[in-house]
């Protein structure tokens, strides 16, 4: 099976940020994303709204440079004011060409 090495950016953030984050991801060069509802503790704690500890998990598969831009922008614009956790992992993606935007 042919796979392409790419980066997986995982963001765990407050639900109110979902719309902003996902539109920024696309603007930064991601070809798509996946959002899952989650809940937990730690950084998430009790935030906006009637459902405590709720969060969204946003996963993006992208080339390393796009991933780096995403991580940089998220840390710059959100870390100070909001609950956001970000990590990078390396993944081997099937049909990897789908995840890379060609200029």
């Amino acid at each position, binding site marked *: 099976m042919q796979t392409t090495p790419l980066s997986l950016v995982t963001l765990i953030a407050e639900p*109110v*940020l979902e719309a902003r984050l996902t539109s920024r991801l696309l603007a930064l060069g991601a070809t798509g994303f996946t959002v899952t509802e989650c809940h937990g503790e730690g950084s998430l704690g009790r935030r*906006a*709204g*009637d459902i*405590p500890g709720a969060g969204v998990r946003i996963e993006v598969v992208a080339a390393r440079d796009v991933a780096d831009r995403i991580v940089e922008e998220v840390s710059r614009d959100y870390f100070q004011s909001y609950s956001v956790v970000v990590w990078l992992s390396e993944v081997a993606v099937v049909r990897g060409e789908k995840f890379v935007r060609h200029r």
Partner: protein
Amino acid sequence: MGELAAATLLAPAPLAFALGVVARLGRTEFRLPKDIYVGLSVYLLWSLGLQGGVELRHAGWGAITYPALATIGLAVLTPVTAYLVLRHAGRFSVADSAGIAAHYGSTSAVTFIAASTAARAAGLEPEGFMPTLLALIESPGIHIALAIGALGGKSEGQPAGAVLREVLTARTMVLLMGGLTVGYLMREAHWTPIAPFFDARAGAFKAVLTIFMLEMGLLAGERLGDLRRVGLFLTGFATVMPAVFGVTGTWFGHLAGLSPGGAAVLGTMAASASYIAAPPAVRVTLPEANPTYSLTAALAVTFPFNLLVGIPLYLRTATWLSA
């Protein structure tokens, strides 16, 4: 006032709320599944809107002009007053004051329902078009408070104007305003068969409300632990300001020509604090505002206060004013 309070409190909805609080204090893990909670709120809001629209068509726009003006007046007065009290008497930061004021400038639909039910039970049927006023008071207060917060200084969040569309298209507004529109346009013949399901006086609505109140109790109980962080001033604020807003609102309603029941419900709307529409709007615009303050005040203090003390007080005020 004792019998009024007893009649108000020993009903399934407030009792379910109390059960929720006690269960949470007893460390139950139980929560209503989120989708069910949201589904029930859709039902409640849609019913309010639909019936309100039908009743508005019956009553006509003329009947609602002065009450609408009174409502808008309250929608402007409450966030500004709340902000000033918090900032200057409470010494909260600009962001915290504006964030909390945004909650108190808006309203709680569930408290509205509780007030309508209590008024009805006391023989003081409120005007049927009250949900229209609910829709009017829901959003302006949030934007006014956020604008004050934005004026107060640079914020890390989005500009206050950007959140206008999001608030106006959020669940509560779509269901309330949409329901009002549909109810208004609908022919009477269409309302009759569905009324037993949506009418606030009917069994289905009251039944759903009790389950919803159980979840409210669980939520409020969860927040009780944060009272210590919230502090004495804010706890006092969360009881005194609603009482002041509630009595003032009742008076405004009386001046606008509402019946005692309607005036008391309007007062309750002014006295209640939002915990659904306001929090995300504040979070996005004023992230420096601490959500623990506003949510604990609104859910753990003001909501039960209005249920236990406020609504009987505003009803009493309304009957006294009309005597």
